């Protein structure tokens, strides 16, 4: 089977989840859709089990922090359909106050550590996750270091400030 065209893929998704799945772009041919946390489990399950799609491979699961948006945390899934060699990217945006999303580890075993990593760095809480602990950072850490407000270096240091470089 050849690659599934993006418009066909999007059509299938919008037929099934009318209004809940919105295309947000296709940079470099990789279809990106946005959905919400109410239907994310259904979307992932549909993509995995549909006979024509078969996105059986969870390539990657991570998050992004956009402090200027109302919904600051974006959880990003990359799926791969090995039989058709098609990839898709799915995003769900969450607010900091309600940073909960259903776990994908019930669909893929491999999501377990990826979700722990995402929790560790962004504080996204995956509801239903069997063992949601920090994974790379120390257990008693109190912050979520990949969030944008977390400084990389000593904030009092001024020799690297952008205004010295005309930026």
């Amino acid at each position, binding site marked *: 089977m050849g690659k599934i065209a993006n418009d066909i893929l999007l059509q299938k998704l919008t037929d099934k989840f009318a209004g809940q799945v919105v295309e947000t*772009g296709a*940079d*470099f041919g*990789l279809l*990106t859709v946005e959905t919400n946390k109410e239907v994310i489990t259904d979307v992932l399950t549909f993509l995995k089990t549909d006979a024509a799609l078969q996105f*059986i*491979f*969870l*390539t*990657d699961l*991570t998050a*992004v*922090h956009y402090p200027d948006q109302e919904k600051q945390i974006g959880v*990003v899934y*990359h799926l791969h359909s*090995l039989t058709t*060699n098609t*990839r898709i*990217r799915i995003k769900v945006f969450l607010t900091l106050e309600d940073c909960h999303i259903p776990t994908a580890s019930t669909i*893929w*075993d*491999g*999501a*377990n*550590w*990826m979700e722990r*990593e995402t929790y560790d*760095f962004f504080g996204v809480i995956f509801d239903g996750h069997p063992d949601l602990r920090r*994974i*790379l*950072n*120390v257990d008693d850490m109190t912050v979520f*270091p*990949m969030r944008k407000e*977390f400084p*990389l*270096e000593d904030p009092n240091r001024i020799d690297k400030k952008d205004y010295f*470089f005309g930026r």
Partner: protein
Amino acid sequence: MQNHPVYTDNDPQTEYSTLNLGPTHPATHGVFQNVLQMDGERIVSGVSTIGYIHRAFEKIAEHRPFYQITPLTDRLNYCSSPINNMGWHMTVEKMLNIQMPKRVDYMRVIIMELARIADHIICNGVLGVDTGAFTGFLYMMEYREEIYEIYEEICGSRLTTNIGRIGGFERNFNKIAFDKIRKFLVKFPPVLREFEALFNRNRIFVDRTKGVAAVTQADALSYSWSGPILRATGVDYDVRAMEPYSSYEDFDFEVPVGENGDVYNRFLVRNEEMWQSMRIIEQALNKIEKEPSDIFHADVPAFYLPPKEEVYNNMEALIYHFKIVMGEVDTPNAEVYHAVEGANGELGFYLINDGGRSPYRLHFRRPSFINYQMYAPMSRGMLLSDAIINMSSLNVIAGELDA
């Protein structure tokens, strides 16, 4: 998942001993800790603790210009740094829509395949050590050294290579480098053949590895395995073949697969991949001869650092040098996912750029991290000694595990 019996809480024996395997046990080849519940020699359950060498690369990358991120990628899988370097360059080039000249693609293919061989030499050599055969490891190690000498000729360093630049290579391969590559292609096959003769039908080795830690295709896919260990289960997923990058579509090679995903199959798949890599390198050398010999980078002055002589003597070069180093070059707003076939599996770079001098967000899809997560569950019911060789055959590299 296992052929071995799995012990449950209903077992008559209720007391188990706890064994801390790692973080620095010599048998684990890296900083991995597994707290195991043991029933004699059998593992009842295990918990993996990782993160001992976490260096926050993703955070650091958000504060560095693109070309300064290459040295960070070196330190992911440090057994095959060039693949990581090339993967990163290609990600940025994809974002910037830079087309590489064919010759650069072929040069990259050569260096990536050499890195793959170097990585597989270590993995299969160490697997031999763990089953009690030191000879193969020492014998093969010499040829990893030869590969490192090739790196040294090309970029000056050996382990963490920082090889190539965004837009090509920092300098052309010299004649010595080509000679060394050709010499390697002549010297290594007999050695690999002998290595295979030593192991493939060796009764002790086969008894120790066959049927050990066998993984079904369904489990491997569910755990998002990729690379040689996924192919050992019979799934022919190889990024080089499925989504060719760096002109891999021009090459004629096979994707070796195994049958039942046990340690023995993984060993065979890696050995066969070394043969295929040599085939690819040989084809690449022949193809390079047909390309103009002075091209080693694309014509993208806004992103490719000019040579120092030009910076000192030429106005444009000086301007570009300044702009690149200070991060003054505009980059597009883009979201890129680019994957390369690393020695351990699909090494992905998920890059979100907001037009600034450094990525807005960079995530590494690290195969070792994802492959390793099945280790504790699959060790249940396994003998401790089998769990050790299972770890060797997964080829988990601590740098890539923890990023």
